[in-house]
């Protein structure tokens, strides 16, 4: 009898160890809500879908321009409820406007009604450190070299413009360094998150906003190259405050 009791106890311990080794995953599965919000990003110029490489557009300083590259990071997404409580996502998303789709999946969103969204264009200081993000073949070109501060480019907007004499020149609007982190203005939304029913939010960047409000950016006056020129990056940071709008 004693023998049986000993074995039974041993069995209990073994089974407990065996099942316990998987316990953490089970708990995590239970604790995290199976809900998500997909933010679909699209890019327009004054209401018209962005077309790359064609000098079709005119900015506020009336420079005809094109876009050949538009890459940036979105992070620090905050989803607000009506009572001002919010859900904060610590995910960082790389966006390349040339991709057919740019969908940001915000996972484990608590059920409820959300009335506003906030986010950063760029990466907050605690993560804006070289190699803090997983390197991918897509994002390795976003690194901001260590010798000029390290971290990542927040924005790369490049293309061509016609100067006052009609000469075709290139521009490179790059933004980086912690001081230039762009906190986008809070946008009103009307999203109801339900369990196991993914919700979608359509978010549109108006590329022209990078060149206006509050600073009317003029390639011919301000310059066509902002990399590591704080005064010019500051213009883009300020203009970037309201580059997005929500499409309901």
């Amino acid at each position: 009898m004693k023998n049986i009791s000993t074995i039974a106890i041993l069995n209990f311990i073994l089974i407990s160890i065996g099942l316990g080794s998987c316990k953490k995953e089970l708990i995590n599965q239970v604790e995290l809500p199976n809900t998500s919000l997909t933010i679909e990003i699209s890019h327009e110029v004054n209401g018209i879908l962005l077309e790359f490489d064609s000098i079709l557009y005119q900015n506020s300083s009336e420079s005809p321009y094109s876009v050949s590259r538009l890459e940036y990071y979105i992070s620090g997404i905050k989803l607000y409820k009506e009572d001002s409580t919010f859900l904060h996502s610590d995910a960082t998303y790389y966006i390349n406007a040339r991709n057919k789709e740019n969908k940001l999946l915000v996972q484990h969103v608590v059920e409820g009604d959300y009335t506003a969204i906030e986010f950063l264009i760029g990466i907050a200081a605690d993560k804006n450190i070289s190699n803090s993000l997983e390197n991918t073949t897509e994002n390795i070109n976003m690194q901001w070299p260590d010798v000029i501060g390290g971290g990542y480019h927040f924005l790369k907007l490049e293309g061509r413009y016609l100067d006052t004499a009609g000469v075709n020149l290139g521009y490179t609007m790059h933004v980086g360094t912690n001081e230039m982190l762009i906190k986008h203005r809070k946008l009103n939304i009307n999203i109801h998150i339900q369990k196991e029913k993914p919700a979608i939010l359509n978010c549109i960047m108006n590329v022209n906003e990078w060149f206006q409000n509050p600073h009317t950016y003029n390639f011919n006056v301000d310059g066509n190259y902002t990399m590591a020129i704080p005064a010019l990056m500051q213009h883009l940071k300020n203009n970037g405050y309201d580059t997005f709008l929500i499409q309901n």
Partner: protein
Amino acid sequence: MTPSLYKTKLMACVGMLLLSISCQEETTVNPENNEPTPYSLAIPTGFPKSYLSKENPLTIEGIQLGKMLYSDPILSSNGRSCSSCHLKENSFSLPIFNSWSGTKISVPPHVNLAFRNKFNWTGSEHNLDTLAMGDFEPEFFNTKPDELYKKLSEHSVYPSLFKKAFGINKIEEVPYHQLKKTIAMALAQHIRTMISANSKFDKFKRRELSLNQMEHEGYVIFFSEKGDCFHCHSDPLFSDQEFHNTGLNISYNGSDKGLFNLTQRQEDMGKFLSPTLRNIEFTAPYMHDGRFSNLEQVIDHYNEGVSDDKHVDPLLNKRNGTRKLNLTPIQKQQLIAFLKALSDWDYIK
């Protein structure tokens, strides 16, 4: 056996069984021994994930077959092998290949191709698994199918390697297109393992040694707006894997049109895929057509020789509103010293 002892043993068995199945998914048992042995590619710190192929997963046997075939003229009817145009001492590149059409091509090196999904100067190929299939054509291997079948099937090693790596029992029964594809896949497996990440600069990043003053000054020039090299040649691959017009021409003929020849889009005029600068010291001459014989000429081009053509990449415009870097002679030498610190001598041993 007494009932109590039987019960005791039964309970013990049940306990062990429950324990064994509690995390069953982590246990992998392969009852078949005929499958090739999976190979896990060691990715250097800081490198992105490699482009691996579901259709052609890396295996020890596949890599071994590819490595043998890479330097074996058995694939050709003219004595050539892959290594004829991808010379080890040149970081598996070839200074100049004169094509039948009269075009001079600086053959790109086989370095870190596991991390690329576009190949050749114009990105004309997107799949490493099929990249070598064109090499059987008259201009390169001029392969005679009958000869290839005979040589491979009578070889002392290849039949068993084809069987182990790809399950091919009789080479002579494989259709020619499929045979070429299988060979290309084996070569691709080998090429994916050709990783270079042990240059002086890599060791500097790993804090194993220091750069000398010239190299360090060049490092700062390379990764700052002074030289502005990093936008197209970003670490760790030292290529952004994108297409750029680097201002080599003011007008465009033939192969100088670059990507335009594939897409017929004006915005692609004169664009070429950024080459890696890893082992650049070993791969002279430079540019797609080998027009610059040394690194000094390359630096001179970016310093003061970029054309005024409208197709030139926006990244070539500098803060002074010109397309000039204004590097001094000593800064040019410092930049070259850094470029030479990207040489991985172990890779070409």
